């Protein structure tokens, strides 16, 4: 097939010869006279050109008199020069404050910032350098309007959820992320220092990625060398320590004794503590659990380039201990990255890259009722860490889940290793001046190696996490392989100097496959050293239901796409895209989807009537509309497969049977998102102020929902059906002010804000509701997707104060549990005379109304300073980290409890007996709004003079603090945390808070 393709291209290629005239040479420098290496010098309307060498020199032979030379270099205003003779040229380039000619990657091609007609945001290397993220996602948080990041966990290596312009699906809402064209799902394996830029396609511009575009697309480009660049070596390192941002105030031993006694008395039991004054302060379990943990990162980068080639190598190492568990929750990462480009011929170019990464993460239980922090909050302060025999104390009577958190950490051994090899190679061939044919192949191979050892441990009587009889071990090794192969043809031409046309035609195939293996070993010796599967008495393969054959997956995408970009005088811009995608996720009838999108732009500042006023440096209006898809569902949901669970015991042995799994729906098709964006970009006051504002509306239709279905169909998984519409409408606004007052003082401030309104328009399931999340034990699911509400809103009872006396109860409506004075009073919304789930109302939503970010930086002489904060307004969080057992500890606000008539109308009484107080209600829903000072950095760069006699070209030292403080009313550890689930996010089971870091760093360049 590909051969046919190439034949055609060869046919199109015809011999080309040009008239001969003169040779031109010269030097390019900046406005201070310093030579600029690597400047692209092109003869306009031809493929002829050169690149300046280290001294800024270039030579071009055989050009016609009257040709126009263009000199372009990132960060400088492109200059044109008409050749009249062969005298040596001296060209000075002006620094471009607006950087409108900065090239932005938009998918299978690039555009300059000025040409872009979609909502595309760029995060550059400087931002990443300034923020020192350990994960890339942190560099997006608050930096880009419309992009919201929630941390799934603050533990080292913990994940983050990226959502672009709201939650547009009930399913998997992760954007498509491509690193040098290579699909990546887990960003933790990337070294942030390797990244040159991150471009976020937020609107229909993403349409070029068709069925995978609906959640937005992030294109990451890694750093590479430049042509004619001498070898440079950079070394960047930082080290420091981390602390928790917050401890939740809980009761000390004496307070605890008082509350427990009261709870027991209220239940009619004998209070367990006698003289409270002897209890003292007791054990502060958070103090025992949290520690100051080190972090360090080193990376080197070697870059360079010759006349025809560029190269870059980078290597990095990061090691980060956890603020809980220290070394037991360590995350470390090695990365190696090589980029190489070569121009075989002037018009025949190779790009290539290879990345090798390894991470190792040690895990402790978190964000569940089994987590260390949950136990630190709930374990009794009256208990010591160890008893008189030196053994860990057992949390007797504190319920089945709460255990001594230090005992838990002492026995933990759970680690995940990831090995990943990624590569890419591309060839491009330019012919007939205006045509380029390009082909890229990208691949990933990764291994995820999990080892989890559970030694014999007795946390105390009745604890569900006890391992009493024998130690066990799980070892899993999963393999993932994917490749993307793209081939496309580009046509670029300019007619009469006013019509510029770009046409792209291409095809792409993507295949991702994998294999899951794992074995549980039982009957191990109780020693971590001997914890190997060889020492196990019995082995159980996780694939035993499949007769031991490894579970695999194989999902593929076959795509064709075309794009036309046209502009008239650079003023009137137009772009249209179509993509046809075939996906293995859908049945034969619906395998192919067709995704059109288009955008228009008007650079009003280039119109004569505005040019004269000279106020605007740029004024551009944009609009885009398109249909994008989302195919993030499981494989083969259109066919009924025998992958259900059906095991029974005969003769005391397991027999593995065959049963149908998930219910098939042959009719499923991709989610379809109609997305509209109207925006304006402007710059004025000599490019010192820039504003970008966008209005958008995204309507996702045919949502892939897994509805509840009739029990008559049996277990095994409900079908996936297309039913539901969700709408995200919002406004983004970003403003920046940058001024170079003098060579000694530069100043910049940037602010962005995003308002999003999320509303579910319909849920076409039999009940009209999808539920998710969990609260308490055995209670109905609190999160819902339902028409007329934000997706994943919290549904529960509305409280109406506290019953102050029996008379109030007698005249009121309540549920199955009869309240007593001091209990919460609920509102009978439907007036049916009973409090039950029919009285549930909306209690809030985990989706913020607005998110914003603020960056301030200035350079004064050799000092540089940067500070950065972000905020979220109007999101709610459910407090679900409190155990309700009468002997578990509680947070300090319990001291405000109801103690008698008139004492409080907010906090219920404490009781170990029956009360309706733990039903899911607004009592447990808190405002999760916050402002966080994420980063403050002060650097000092040694002057050129000081470095004159050394080989060092740049030396900078800095101190930085990250996550220094958070202003919030929220009582839990970290308001930025969420599981990220569209339905069920924002429920706090004791999230691992993101650590505060104090860092000392160095940037060194030779």
């Amino acid at each position, binding site marked *: *097939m590909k051969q046919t393709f190439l034949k055609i291209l060869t046919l199109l290629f015809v011999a080309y010869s040009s008239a001969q005239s003169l040779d031109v040479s010269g030097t390019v420098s900046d406005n201070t006279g310093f030579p600029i290496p690597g400047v692209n010098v092109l003869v306009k309307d031809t493929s002829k050109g050169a690149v300046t060498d280290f001294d800024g020199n270039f030579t071009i032979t055989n050009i016609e008199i009257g040709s126009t030379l263009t000199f372009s270099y990132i960060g400088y205003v492109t200059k044109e020069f008409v050749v009249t003779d062969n005298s040596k040229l001296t060209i000075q380039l002006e620094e471009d404050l607006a950087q409108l000619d900065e090239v932005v990657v938009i998918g299978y091609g690039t555009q300059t910032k000025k040409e872009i007609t979609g909502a595309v945001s760029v995060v550059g290397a400087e931002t990443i350098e300034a923020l020192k993220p350990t994960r890339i996602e942190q560099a997006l948080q608050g930096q880009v309007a419309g992009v919201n990041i929630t941390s799934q966990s603050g533990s080292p290596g913990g994940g983050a959820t990226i959502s672009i312009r709201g939650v547009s699906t009930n399913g998997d809402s992760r954007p498509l992320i491509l690193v040098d064209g290579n699909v990546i799902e887990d960003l933790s394996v990337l070294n942030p220092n390797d990244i040159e830029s991150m471009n976020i396609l937020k609107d229909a511009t993403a349409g070029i990625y068709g069925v995978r575009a609906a959640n937005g697309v992030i294109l990451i480009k890694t750093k590479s060398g430049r042509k004619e660049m001498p070898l440079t070596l950079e070394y960047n390192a930082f080290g420091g320590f981390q602390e928790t941002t917050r401890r939740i105030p809980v009761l000390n031993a004496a307070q605890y004794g008082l509350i427990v006694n009261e709870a027991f008395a209220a239940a009619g039991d004998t209070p367990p503590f006698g003289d409270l004054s002897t209890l003292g302060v007791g054990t502060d379990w958070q103090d025992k659990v949290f520690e100051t943990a080190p972090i360090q990162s080193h990376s080197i980068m070697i870059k360079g380039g010759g006349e025809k080639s560029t190269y870059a190598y980078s290597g990095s190492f990061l090691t980060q201990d956890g603020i809980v568990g220290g070394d037991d929750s360590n995350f470390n990462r090695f990365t190696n990255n090589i980029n190489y480009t070569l121009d075989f011929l002037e018009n025949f170019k190779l790009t290539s890259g290879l990345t090798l990464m390894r991470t190792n993460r040690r895990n402790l239980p978190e964000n569940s009722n089994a987590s260390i922090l949950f136990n630190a909050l709930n374990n009794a302060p009256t208990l010591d860490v160890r008893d008189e025999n030196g053994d860990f104390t057992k949390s007797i009577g504190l319920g089945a889940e709460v255990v001594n958190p230090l005992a838990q950490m002492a026995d933990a051994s759970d680690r995940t290793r990831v090995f990943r090899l990624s590569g890419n190679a591309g060839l491009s061939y330019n012919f007939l001046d205006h045509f380029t044919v390009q082909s890229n192949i990208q691949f990933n191979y990764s291994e995820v190696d999990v080892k989890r050892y559970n030694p014999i441990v007795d946390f105390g*009587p009745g604890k569900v996490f006890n391992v009493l009889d024998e130690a066990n071990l799980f070892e899993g090794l999963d393999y993932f392989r994917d490749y993307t192969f793209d081939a496309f043809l580009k046509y670029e031409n300019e007619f009469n100097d006013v019509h510029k046309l770009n046409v792209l035609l291409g095809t792409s195939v993507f295949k991702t496959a994998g294999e899951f293996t794992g074995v549980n070993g039982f009957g191990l010796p109780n020693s971590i050293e001997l914890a190997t599967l060889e020492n196990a008495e019995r082995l159980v393969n996780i694939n035993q239901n499949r007769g031991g054959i490894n579970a695999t997956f194989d999902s593929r995408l076959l795509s064709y796409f075309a794009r036309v970009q046209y502009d008239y005088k650079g003023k009137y811009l137009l772009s249209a895209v179509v993509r046809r995608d075939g996906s293995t996720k859908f049945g034969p009838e619906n395998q192919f989807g067709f995704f059109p999108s288009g955008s228009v732009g008007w650079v009003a500042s280039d119109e004569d009537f505005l040019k004269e006023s000279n106020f605007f440096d740029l004024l551009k209006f944009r609009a885009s509309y398109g249909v994008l898809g989302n195919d993030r569902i499981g494989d083969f949901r259109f066919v009924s497969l*025998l992958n259900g669970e059906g095991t029974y015991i005969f003769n*005391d042995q397991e027999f593995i*049977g065959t049963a*149908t799994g998930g219910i098939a729906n042959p009719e499923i098709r991709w989610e379809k998102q109609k997305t509209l964006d109207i925006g304006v970009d402007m710059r004025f006051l000599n490019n010192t102020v820039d504003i970008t504002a966008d209005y958008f509306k995204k309507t996702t239709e045919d949502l892939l929902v897994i509805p*509840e279905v009739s029990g008559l*169909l049996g277990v095994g998984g409900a079908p996936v059906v297309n039913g539901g519409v969700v709408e995200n409408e919002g406004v983004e606004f970003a403003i920046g002010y940058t001024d170079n007052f003098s060579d000694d003082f530069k100043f910049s401030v940037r602010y962005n804000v995003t308002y999003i309104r999320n509303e579910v328009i319909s849920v076409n399931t039999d009940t009209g509701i999808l539920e998710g999340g969990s609260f308490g034990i055995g209670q109905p699911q609190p999160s819902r997707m339902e028409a007329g509400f934000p997706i994943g809103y919290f549904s529960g009872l509305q409280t109406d104060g506290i019953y102050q006396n029996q008379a109030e109860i007698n005249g009121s409506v309540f549920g199955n549990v009869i309240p007593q004075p001091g209990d919460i009073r609920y509102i009978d919304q439907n007036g049916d005379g009973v409090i039950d789930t029919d009285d549930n109302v909306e209690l809030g939503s985990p989706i913020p109304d607005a998110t914003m970010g603020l960056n301030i930086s200035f350079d004064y002489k050799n000092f540089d300073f940067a500070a950065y904060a972000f905020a979220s307004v109007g999101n709610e969080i459910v407090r679900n980290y409190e155990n309700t057992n009468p002997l578990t500890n509680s947070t300090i606000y319990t001291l405000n409890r109801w103690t008698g008539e008139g004492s409080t109308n907010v906090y219920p009484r404490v009781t*170990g007996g029956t009360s309706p107080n733990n039903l899911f209600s607004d009592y447990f829903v808190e405002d999760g709004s916050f402002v966080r000072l994420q980063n403050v950095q002060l650097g000092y760069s040694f002057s050129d003079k000081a470095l004159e006699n050394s080989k060092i070209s740049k030396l900078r030292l800095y101190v930085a603090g990250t996550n220094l403080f958070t202003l919030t009313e929220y009582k839990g550890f970290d308001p930025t945390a969420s599981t990220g689930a569209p339905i069920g996010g924002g429920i706090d089971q004791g999230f691992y808070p993101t650590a505060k870091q104090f860092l000392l760093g160095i940037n060194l360049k030779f």
Partner: protein
Amino acid sequence: MKDIKIKNILSLVAFLAMFSCADDFIIVAPDDENSEDFFNTEEDYQKALVSAYDMLQATARNYQLGEIASDNTLCGGQNALDTPGYQEIDDMIHTPVNAQLREIWTWMYTGVNRTNYIMEFQDKLDFPSKTSVLAQTRFLRAYYYFQLVKWFGDVPLAVDARIQFGDQFNIERTPKAEVYTQIEQDLMFAASNLPYTQPQTGRITKGAAEALLGKVYLYQDKFTESATVLESLINNGPHRLLSSTEAPLMWENENENNIESVFEIQYSDIDGGSYDCFYCLEGNFAIGFNGVRGYVGPVFDFGFSFNVPVQEVVDAFEPGDIRLEYSILDIEQWIADNPTATYDETAGFEQTGYFNRKYIARQGDLNLPDAALTNPNNTRAIRYADVLLMAAEALNRGGISDTRAQDYLNEVRNRAMLDDVTTTGPNLTNDIYKERRVELVGEGHRFFDLVRTGRAATEIDGFQTGKHELFPIPIQEIQLAGNVWEQNPGY
């Protein structure tokens, strides 16, 4: 010039379109077999049958909740809000919104669908063990339908075809009597085509089929048919009561599948799961829930103090009855006898000091990976003692023979070291009822026995005649099946 370029581009487009022959790139065969292309070997049938057996394990819930619904036990648990579906049934205030009832509904229909999957393809292949496979399958179908009829009354009846996606909107509730007819036919087929002893423990036997058929007749007051089939089992089957010395150890795990056990549901301790999926477990999850809260000590493992017996059922045992000690655990007495033992007496809800000793966790099993969920205790679903008492009841209430009824009753009483009963007529009926309660305490039969004999309203607090004989069809199930079924009366 321009035209030529356009032509070139168009021809390129045409060639790109030729790529469409590569569309087979996205035809990928799934790893797992398609459910429509199965049943090609005998092994396929056997594997489908294993899956049909699998849902028997999910009935741990039916037996536990059946006991809680009765006057034998209280719900218990951690607090009043612990598993509201259980608490409400215990208090007879349950409504059509009940997660646990919905699970019973769904799990039993899963069993029905798995048996019907085999029946749907019964003619696809002939093989030597086919009759046995079909007989076991039909027993299981009858068993699942019997559960559904007991709990919900009239239920949708699908025979020899799976209920597939879309079918749920076009299926009516079938009158109970018709469902019973199907159950009887299935059990008669099973009884005539299965042996009394199977080479593997856990397989359905002729005895199990006869015992269940006798029970199904008794539930319909078909006393003659019931007595006939039960006496056939008594006279021809291999079963007997364990002796008075063997009986106290009947509930220990080493005495599973003993000679008294006519139909026993098999569990294992080596392959557990999580709270997210009770039906996926190979362990008996009711055991951990029934256990002694916070227990430390010999013999037993801890549990969550559900399903706790009340004083009244303890008092129902006659003096000298050896069954009391092995049926109900008096935890205070136990601690007095075993001073190293302790338990968490204040933490649980509705604690009575008694626990269901037949079905609480024993030490010494592997509990992999979770002590609470992976207990190997088999459910003795039909014991020979039950068969004798059912036969006695059928003979007596059917006016067939009080003498033989007394014999069977006294066989059970004598094993418990109690004297013979000599009553006849209605008095004998009452004696049989009393015996059923104490012999079968903790085994999940009581509620349904009270309902079918019309005694529930007098024995169970809050029981309303005309309403609580049946449980409500879960409201979501009515909605999800097209909202056309009528709810059971009173709900």
